[in-house]
């Protein structure tokens, strides 16, 4: 897949979005142990009380940024299923957990997008905790917002395609 210059794109190519969506299902169904659904109507524009996990998959030309917006209740549930106990939401360990989950997602994405010609590597993750958080990207690069839900969890993923600096 040849990616056009970012300024020529008004949206992220569907093949890339499809591979990232598949990675979300691979990663989170395995972690959660329950079926995940893609929520068509979820736009993710509301403010968040929770944690945002940031990670990128990049090469010398392009960067795929992945921002996982995880509400507080879902973050607590993740800690129960991932490490077997509920971590305090305000703890450093909770940030560590969300960073690790972001890292696992990025590893799957890096392998999956290779199938459609995007060869890249994942960055180290970061996590940001807060209330009334709003995600926005300067310069409005091609962006895809996705919402996912399972029986006990819901989260948003904002995917952004930009030129690498």
């Amino acid at each position, binding site marked *: 897949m040849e990616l056009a210059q970012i300024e020529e794109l008004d949206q992220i190519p569907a093949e890339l979005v499809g591979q990232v969506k598949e990675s979300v299902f691979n990663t989170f169904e395995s972690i959660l142990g329950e079926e995940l659904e893609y929520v068509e109507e979820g736009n993710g524009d509301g403010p968040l009380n929770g944690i945002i996990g940031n990670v990128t998959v990049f090469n010398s030309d392009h960067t795929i940024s992945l921002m996982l917006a995880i509400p507080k209740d879902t973050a607590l549930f993740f800690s129960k299923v991932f*490490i077997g106990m509920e971590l305090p939401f305000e703890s450093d360990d909770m940030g560590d957990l969300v960073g690790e989950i972001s890292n696992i997602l990025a*590893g799957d994405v890096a392998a999956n997008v*290779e199938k459609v010609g995007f060869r890249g590597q994942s960055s180290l993750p970061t996590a940001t905790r807060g209330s009334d958080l709003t995600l926005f990207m300067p310069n409005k690069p091609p962006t895809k917002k996705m919402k996912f839900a399972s029986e006990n969890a819901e989260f948003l993923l904002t995917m952004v395609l930009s030129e690498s600096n």
Partner: protein
Amino acid sequence: MSTIKALVVDDSKIMRSAVKRALNNLMLADFDYVEAKDGEDALEKFNEEEIEIMFVDWNMPNMTGVEFSQAVREQGHDHIPIIMVTAEKSMGKVDKALNEGGANEYITKPFTADKMHKAISDYFDDDGNIAGGSDGDDDEDKSFFKGILNS
């Protein structure tokens, strides 16, 4: 049952805990854990302790898991099992870890107890001592993996 000194290398404390919990649950041996937060820290601890088996993440600051594994192999420690436990899943990464990094096994995150058991059980004998290593299905899996990589 003797005690096996295991080095667990991951920049995530949560992940180090998850690896230790999984190993304890498998009850293959009685482990004494040494933890390291990146490759540099791991190399320092490796040179201070009598490490018998290692569980190593890939993507870490300062020194990656593969760079650490290469450093261990370059020191001539060919007999110590290195188990990569990583989120990196692309075939190129697996190939690099196994062939250039000298890793013995490759486990992708998130891992299950079954996945962990299948990868490492051959490295322990019935008394919980380190055994000769993988010589059964795991070798077949690895050969299969390498076959794909080489095709």
